[in-house]
């Protein structure tokens, strides 16, 4: 039945008339074009943030200061994180949501197309403000992406610019989240009940609620910083009766759900790729949905595990340890479900599948180091060392970013109408996976042996692993040029993709032609 709608689309070829360049790319209200803009923005920021990571790794290649002074080093670590979190990962997933959510639920567009345009176009301005802070006296923010008070209160005017930029990003994220929620709840094709929704839509629906819940909290925290800095308040200043730890509680009440905002959509993408290439339905769909919801709920009650060393009472430490350990149950359910989906499938290993398997494997490694970090007495030793740096790059790079890369290869034929070069895709996967591990695996050892994070310089016994890490980082960075090449080549040409692209994949997005026409699902498909 759903194929009837595709036929309907073919009858409306006149709708595929695209506006001229400026109107199309600057004034667009089309979910696909806005999705493309988000994805291009995200990829650009991946390179900007990545370049900063390479400056960090170049400085850390040897002990001593060779290239940059510690103040600039701190600017690099701070800006690398802010750009990767708010510029690369979050907008990347919004790009996927824009492209795929309407196609997956059989909607003609997002529910609020003009707001969609606005939520994208805020971002380039927000990041212009953030990046231009390099050129004000004192340089960019240098107090870490967590912007802990009272260090932030010492910062130069760049901190104020970062606060303005964060407010703008927050507005953009909240509008994007509202758009996803309204679209998903109101515009599903007839017959698509909530429990028939594709996993990616489910994970994004839950992510959107997390965003609406916590972005205002972050906005509140940075606003309090701003008034502490300029208007004589003392929320976080002990000299005025304020409390530096209060900032950390507020920040991490935002920050912990934030890490799930960055990983839940990745879980969604993986849950589409694995069944497609295992030629077998996703195992345990409803438990996947409940596990996602459980993770989202737990994410609100574990925040203080980021700050065990601030001197909480024993009872508090015990509560946050137990609650944090609990997260591994629903996360484990997801991993088991993916592995069981592969079990007795008929697998092939095209690039997206390689990425999906890589994500399951490496994300789980990061998840297990996360379980170690949850154990409070041990966390006292891991806290603020390279063990933590290794952990969160395993969940964020080999979790979120590699899932997006897999998703890009998976849906690129649908977006462009061309097949990408499979050999190059596989090479890109192996380069990325291998260099990623050379970069970050040794950091576990560095952290355990006692190297604190955010250090511009280190004692000589940490030299060897830092050299491996720097070597890997440059390999990882250079390998991403291949990613750009593959995407550009696929946009420009290549073997024609069929509507289904893959071998009998599941989902409405595969019922429309490739490339997906400018307007799809003018008439809603009917779900069996």
């Amino acid at each position, binding site marked *: 039945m759903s194929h009837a709608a595709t036929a309907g689309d073919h009858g409306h070829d006149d709708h595929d008339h695209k506006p001229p360049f400026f109107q199309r790319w600057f004034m667009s209200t089309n979910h696909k074009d806005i999705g493309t803009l988000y994805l291009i923005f995200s990829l650009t920021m991946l390179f900007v943030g990545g370049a900063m990571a390479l400056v960090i790794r170049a400085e850390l290649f040897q*002990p*001593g200061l*060779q*290239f940059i002074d*510690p103040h600039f080093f*701190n600017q690099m670590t701070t800006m690398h994180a802010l750009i990767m979190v708010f510029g690369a990962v979050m907008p990347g997933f919004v790009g996927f949501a824009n492209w795929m959510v309407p196609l997956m639920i059989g909607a003609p567009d997002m529910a609020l197309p003009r707001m969609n345009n606005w939520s994208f176009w805020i971002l380039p301005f927000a990041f212009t403000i953030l990046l231009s802070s390099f050129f004000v*006296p*004192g*340089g960019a923010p240098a107090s870490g992406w967590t912007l802990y008070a*009272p*260090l932030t*209160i*010492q910062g130069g005017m760049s901190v104020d610019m970062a606060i303005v930029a964060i407010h703008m990003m927050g507005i953009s994220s909240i509008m994007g989240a509202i758009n996803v929620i309204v679209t998903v709840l109101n515009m599903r094709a007839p017959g698509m009940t909530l429990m028939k929704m594709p996993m990616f839509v489910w994970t994004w629906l839950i992510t959107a609620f997390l965003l609406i819940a916590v972005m205002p909290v972050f906005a509140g925290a940075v606003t309090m910083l701003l008034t502490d*800095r300029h208007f004589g308040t003392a929320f976080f*200043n*002990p000299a005025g009766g*304020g409390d*530096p730890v209060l900032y950390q509680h507020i920040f991490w009440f935002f920050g912990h759900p934030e890490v799930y905002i960055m990983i839940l959509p990745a879980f969604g993408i993986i849950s589409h790729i694995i069944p497609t290439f*295992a*030629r*077998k*339905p996703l*195992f*345990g769909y*409803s*438990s996947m949905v409940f596990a996602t919801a459980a993770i989202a709920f737990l994410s609100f009650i574990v925040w203080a595990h980021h700050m065990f*060393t*601030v*001197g909480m009472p*024993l009872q508090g430490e015990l509560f946050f340890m*137990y609650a944090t350990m609990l997260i591994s149950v629903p996360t484990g*359910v997801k991993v088991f479900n993916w*592995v069981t989906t592969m079990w*007795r*499938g008929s*697998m*092939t290993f095209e690039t997206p599948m390689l990425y999906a*398997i890589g994500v399951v*494997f490496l994300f*789980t490694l990061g998840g*297990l*180091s996360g*379980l*170690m970090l949850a154990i409070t*007495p*041990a966390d*006292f*030793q891991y*806290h*603020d060392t390279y063990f933590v740096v290794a952990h969160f790059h395993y969940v964020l790079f080999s979790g979120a970013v590699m899932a997006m890369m897999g998703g890009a290869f998976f849906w690129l034929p649908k977006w462009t109408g061309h097949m990408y070069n499979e050999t190059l895709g596989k090479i890109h996967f192996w380069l990325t996976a291998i260099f990623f591990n050379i970069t970050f695996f040794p950091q576990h*050892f560095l952290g355990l*042996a*006692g190297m*604190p994070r955010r*250090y511009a*310089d*280190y*004692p*000589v*016994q940490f030299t060897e692993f830092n050299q491996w890490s720097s070597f890997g980082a440059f390999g990882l960075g250079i390998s991403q040029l291949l990613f750009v090449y593959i995407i550009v080549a696929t946009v420009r040409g290549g073997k024609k993709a069929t509507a289904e692209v893959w071998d009998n994949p599941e989902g409405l997005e595969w019922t429309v032609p490739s490339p997906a026409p400018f307007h799809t699902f003018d008439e809603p498909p009917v779900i069996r």
Partner: protein
Amino acid sequence: MVLSQHIKSFAKISAFGTFLMTTLFSGLAQAEYRLNFQDPVTEVARDIFGLHMLIFWICVAIFVAVFSVMFYSIFAHRKSKNYEPAQFSHSTTVEIVWTIVPFIILVIMAIPATKVLIKMEDTTKSELTIKITGYQWKWGYDYLGLDQDISFYATLATPRNQIDQFDKENAEPQGENYLLETDNVLVVPSGRKIRALITANDVIHAWWIPAFGTKKDAIPGYINELWFNVDVGKEGIYRGQCAELCGKDHAFMPIVVQVVTGAEFDGWVAAGGSFDGVESIAQEPPLETPEVKVDAATSSVIDAIVPAAQASDQPSSKTWTKEELMTKGESVGANCLACHGSDGKGIPGVFPAIAGSAIATGPIDDHIKIVMFGKPGTAMAAFAGQLNDEQIAAVVTYQRNSFGNETGDVVLPADVKAKRN
């Protein structure tokens, strides 16, 4: 011509590659790198190490179990082997099992973790209390409740030219304890429960000695607690670093602890914080410079960190010449250059310049006051409690007559003393 350029740049790249690989492999060949925690020397650190290894092996077991299944499946259930896909999509039994079993494993982990945590947080029945204060960028130590006051600061002792490798001409190779050495060291006895009260003066720092299994944030306005009790027989030097981002020189405020026997410690306390006359220690080659006592002949570096409490006891009747103040000011003022730059030009926007600044060339009183009382909301700390009158006078004099400042002013200790109250 184009070809030769290509060859040249290729040669450069391959030279860099060779350099990279030789550094990597020669580095590894002679490596003394560690893969795991430092050897624990307290009971708590041993408990943490045991807990860490327990969780680690449980995680390894889970990892191996899950991914053997996955890789077996990848190997066996592939289309190229014409494996026919099954179509099952759920099994309530399996799903209940893999929710319950991990939960049980978590309980098994949580029990020992809870026990260790309760032990770590029990700071009662301590035999010695030390107050530790974090500063940008040094540590201050005060021994509390002893018959005599012992307090001092500990600043990085690694020479600047080992750190700065920008200028290869003046750079020196890094020493064995590069970035892990301080001018003064915290001296503690083994076999006694020591409680530390931890706070900070400006921003958040964290006091960490890996071998003791202790790490706690030093937060302004808070007094945190931790305790450790080093095993008898484990006397020696232990090193750690600041573990919470505290600004520019976060990486340059290490922590060095010298653990001595109880008897040696008592001797050290009796001598007012000195090992002079403490037999067993005096015979060994000095591991560090444990000198704390004020001595007119001590070097100017030590002079710079002399605690004000002791230093202000000195008679200030001496008549200072400008030259003397300038010499002393240069050495005391070395600490200022961490922020204000070795050329006194600072970093515009965050660390103001001394060279040509309104403070250092304007009214003398403003200059003395900012050194003594700091500037709230910035990294400029109040040094009235850290430096004595002579030191402050010397620093101010030096700064008003160097970095291109030519005020000709001479500030005397009496000028500083007048502002103390």
